[in-house]
């Protein structure tokens, strides 16, 4: 990993839309007066949500003014945490988990699928600019390995074929069904339960 830099193409202006504004105010209300700076991380995330998964410099400036803190402080936070995207990642941001459990279960096949369908390199927009992919560390769904995350949804128990299908749908603008792709409910054991048989709702 190297230092992530803000994108060369920056929009001219940024404002919170009414929904974001309401969400931001809700967060700020949680902190004591004059300590509203503490809300900077949450606000950056709200801005990222609103601006198709990335934070432009104007948004950092906007948040700096919003919270009455120096721009450089907002900039520091945004560059520190890797989950803030500083360059466009497309409307659909695909994160493939390649940490050990997923890797053992074939996560690199998923990466191959992404390379075929979306773009040759990580953090590169697809031809229609609608999505990009990147490898990430553990997303905490090891039981359903291998898996990937598209925006807020997890897609689990994948292989290359299934990934290709999901990506096709994504590229045509549909939203595929999230969850397990081997018919499991959440992370229940495959081929039926083996323990706690006497409990009905376990």
């Amino acid at each position, binding site marked *: 990993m*190297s*230092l992530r830099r803000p994108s060369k193409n920056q929009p001219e202006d940024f404002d919170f839309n009414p929904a974001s504004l309401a969400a931001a105010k809700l967060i700020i209300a949680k902190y004591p007066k004059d300590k509203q700076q503490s809300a900077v991380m949450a606000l950056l995330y709200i801005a990222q949500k609103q601006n198709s998964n990335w934070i432009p410099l104007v948004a950092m400036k906007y948040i700096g*003014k919003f919270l009455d803190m*120096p*721009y450089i*402080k907002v*900039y*520091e936070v945004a560059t*520190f945490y890797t989950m803030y995207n500083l360059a466009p990642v497309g409307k659909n941001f695909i994160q493939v988990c390649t940490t050990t459990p997923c890797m053992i279960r074939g996560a690199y096949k998923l990466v191959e699928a992404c390379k075929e369908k979306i773009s040759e390199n990580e953090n590169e927009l697809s031809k229609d600019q609608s999505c990009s992919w990147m490898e990430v560390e553990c997303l905490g769904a090891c039981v359903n390995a291998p898996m990937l995350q598209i925006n807020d949804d997890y897609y689990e128990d994948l292989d290359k074929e299934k990934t290709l299908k999901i990506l096709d749908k994504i590229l045509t603008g549909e939203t595929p069904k999230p969850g397990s792709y081997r018919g499991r409910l959440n992370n229940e054991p495959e081929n039926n339960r083996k323990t706690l048989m006497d409990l009905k709702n376990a």
Partner: protein
Amino acid sequence: MLKLKVNEIDIEVEEGLTVLQACEKAGVEIPRFCYHEKLSIAGNCRMCLVELEKSPKPVASCAMPAAEGMNIKTNTEFVEKARKGVMEFLLANHPLDCPVCDQGGECDLQDQSMFYGVDKSRYKENKRAVSEKNMGPLIKTQMTRCIHCTRCVRFATEVAGVTEIGAIGRGEDMEITTYLEQSMQSELSANVVDLCPVGALTSKPYVFEARPWELKKTESIDVMDAIGSNIRVDTYGWEVKRILPRINEDINEEWISDKTRYACDGLLNQRLDTPYIKYNGKFEKASWNEVFNIIKSKFKNADKNKICGMSGDLINMESLYIFKEFFNKTLGSYNVESRSDHTYLNSKKRENYLFNSTINGIEEADFILLIGSNPRYEATILNARIRKAYLQNKTKIISLNDVGDLTYPYESLDGDIENIKKITEDNHEVSSLIKEAKKPLIIFGQSSLKTKSAKYIFESVKSFLKKNNKMSDEWNSLNTISENASTVGSFDLGLYKTVDGSNEVLKDLENHMFEIVYLLGVDNLKFEKKNEFVIYQGSHGDKGAEIADIILPGAAYTEQNGYFTNLEGKIQKAYKASFPPEEAKEDWLIINELAEAMNHRKLFNDKDELDSSLLNQINLFIEKDKSIKSSTVENVEFKQEILKIENEDYYYSNAIARASKTMLECKTAKVNLKLTGTEG
């Protein structure tokens, strides 16, 4: 008091100190990079590790509070090994470019690696490369050398009050930068160069100029503003290569303003190096004898009431004193003036033009009122003190005018003089704030002393303070920010002619009453010349020399020994670091020789005689001043007026700064930043 042991020696220290400070009290030096007395504690370089009894791991002494019964060891093998380990990590990514690094010879990392460095590297990996950052025309960056001590970040946030430097990224990729690589908008910015313990931030104008051991170091006094910052002048032959701050806790602590530091390249340009005479509108070189003869005949033929002398902003007290003696004794004229504009002066008592609360006193103040002042530009170091006071005590600050960002929050009134009237008539919320405050600080800026209502503003506020006992020997809340380095010295020596505070000489000059005008380093005079014969004595070919008929080349402040009195009334001596160029002479010498040419008698036999006579005069004056009872001028007529703050051209305020390329760059950088609108 806490009792503890440092290297088996028992010492007692006050409570609230850190282990590092306790060690220093015991005379043990601890290596450090990130720790700095004047900044907050970061504790991130880990160089100050010490062994603490009963602690299994070494402890960062800068961040560890000293406690009763501690047994600190700094000279054990354990400590040395720990520090060597830290140093090895610091050097893992630090380039081996000391031979081409400007910090070489005065680098903390270089010095400390002589003790704790390992002679060979165990790393085979590539070193980290970091791109250079733009931090403006004063600071050169070489960020590969950065060891992330964050001193610069803390300085900008805490002392300078401009949160523009920060650390972006994380871990190994952390980089220090200004926001989007804009130049730093502070008049104290270049102090980060001194703070940087390595060569990451170095001085741009001084780049590859000299090595520290080649330079002759002279401790001196700054003249760029009235603060009288303590400086060290580094010279290489004749050239002044750079100016660094000296620690003086009562004045500038350890900071100096950018103008103080970088106007010094103006000492090399635009210099007057030989006497000139103007023939048909053109200057021609002349010898000292020629010019003295012309001046002599001019003075001989002139009516002594039609002669006037004006002294400038960067003149030391010896020259001022001999200038006045020359006029009074040799010429028999009393038209001597040091103010080059219509500044109001109440010369009855010294307190009327001094910063009476002293610079240290600012930290004790509990209320500050600024009248017609932008201290950020008028006295940068003083402004940093006000900020320090604000940070320590949350001092309430009110300014009559809105003067923009002062690096601390303040309330502003609308600038109407009516407010002063209300305040002094006890009819304003500020009146009660002043009365309630134990140690209020009322600061008059130059703008308030230059307006038409200057007399009203000053005298009415003064009598209000007097009435409410805010001007006593313990705490005198009446403060003036003097304009120039020589202002207080000139007033102390009586270089003014006034009855009611107005500038009579300048009035007469503007009405073209004089035949001969002798300007001693006067460059800020706005004067349309008619038939006057102008003699200009000074160091730079600036505004004063332009209107002159005869030019006498003088010396700049680094080229002669001289006393300066700062705005608090402290006398300090500036020492000669260099010498005047070519034919130019020290200012006092020129006047002394001119006096000799005029009537075959020197005013003083030598510099020593002048010095002792001057100090005598000043001591007598100050003694006499103490016995004068402070009085007030009542019933000054009120005039409706809106006070305007003169937007002082900070980087261009005197002849030396105007001749400086660096100051021009600073000015352009500031203008450009405003034009792009990126400042927010």
